[in-house]
């Protein structure tokens, strides 16, 4: 109980360390979800509307990759960004940039798989209409993504939830460096091991609050715009 009280005191006092860690987590995860969305939503939509030999296999692989273990993604990104790796020259390892790359890799399969499913259902209804308007593949993707924007918000929120709550990938590629790459999840893990429970609890409460605020804001915006375009 003492720890819980101390945790609320830290939050109430807007403890500088807590806020810096929260801001870094938010920045990394939002950047990863934004980058992931730019790549995965068009890719998922493309997978939904084109047919090619082996498509069921590709769909199965993308679906399976939704469950990629974060620590494995961290390892792969580590190998890519390490000094002797193919992207070592970028000098990103143990920086927030590396953490963004790792979380983007985590978010892409989830976003692509959910987008593929959402778009495929709508595509059955609108395919003939869009083809009769002589829209090319990318124009059809643009129109379908716009048409389904409210449903796709849910996919983006799921990706954000996965990114902000994972610990393995950012730990491996970020190194949990105090004041530089320490996120809420890596800090919670470390502080719990050290026995500094008030800080761990404060960060945990803040993490839940951030997830609730982001989801609540997105849901409210979705509900408002859906009222305009039901």
């Amino acid at each position: 109980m003492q720890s819980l009280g101390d945790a609320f005191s830290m939050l109430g006092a807007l403890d500088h360390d807590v806020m810096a860690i929260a801001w870094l987590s938010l920045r990394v995860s939002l950047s990863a979800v934004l980058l992931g969305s730019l790549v995965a939503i068009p890719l998922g939509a493309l997978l939904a509307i084109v047919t090619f030999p082996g498509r069921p296999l590709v769909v199965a692989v993308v679906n399976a990759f939704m469950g990629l273990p974060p620590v494995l993604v961290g390892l792969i990104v580590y190998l890519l960004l390490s000094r002797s790796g193919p992207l070592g020259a970028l000098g990103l390892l143990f920086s927030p940039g590396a953490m963004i790359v790792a979380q983007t890799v985590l978010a892409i399969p989830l976003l692509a798989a959910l987008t593929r499913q959402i778009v495929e259902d709508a595509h059955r209804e609108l395919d003939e209409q869009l083809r009769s308007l002589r829209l090319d593949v990318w124009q059809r993707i643009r129109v379908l993504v716009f048409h389904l924007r409210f449903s796709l918000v849910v996919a983006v929120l799921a990706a954000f939830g996965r990114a902000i709550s994972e610990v393995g990938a950012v730990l491996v590629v970020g190194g949990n460096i105090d004041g530089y790459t320490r996120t809420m999840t890596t800090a919670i893990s470390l502080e719990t091991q050290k026995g500094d429970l008030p800080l761990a609890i404060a960060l945990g409460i803040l993490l839940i609050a951030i997830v609730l605020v982001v989801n609540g804001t997105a849901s409210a915006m979705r509900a408002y715009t859906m009222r305009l375009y039901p």
Partner: protein
Amino acid sequence: MTAGLQIVLRGLCFRPNGRTVLAGLDATITSPGITAIIGPNGAGKSVTLRMIDGLLQPDSGTVRFGPRPPESIRRSFVFQRPGLIRASVARNIALALLPLRLPRAEAERRVATALARVGLADRADDSAQKLSGGEQQRLALARVWVTDPELLLLDEPTASLDPGATEAIECLVHSMAKAGTKIVLVSHNIGQVARLARDVLVLCQGRVVEHGATGQILTMPRTPEARAFLKAEMPWQCFAAAS
């Protein structure tokens, strides 16, 4: 503009999953105005329309437009369900202009003109989903009108509309035909066919069993298949035997 637009269908066969939908369909449509395709369910009317548009490819046979290559014909299609996206009325119309890559001002001008033509100018910024069924189908017509098609294909455009909305759609279709657009209409509404069409194709089991002027087909069908279909549609009608 569309004088001389020929639609020549030769030996169209279509057998999805082994089920025969079109069985060597032949037709030549040369008349201006509105041509109707009628026939019982499963006769292949909608499939024929989709092949004329290019949405479906036949297993064998050809769709030609006289000497002109198919891609040079500005074709548009209106379906039974209008297929609208979650966006404003104006944005739904602007979709049809995407392939033309027009400057924004020109696209907006065309959208405004199309909306005025179908009587939806004051609904431009409303959600398309909030329109009534009749208004949605008028929006679908505006969306094809905006591209100034030479050939318009209509697949039962008033099937789920009340008489008032049906009349509004028929007026618009009639005015498009008068403006020079060649229209091919699939309809189960024989009254609508009588009101709109200049000539009629009767399809049965994937073939054209009769093609002629509307008045002749609807009052004196020559073939037993056409007679049987029209008798089922208009049981009160006595058909004179064709000479």
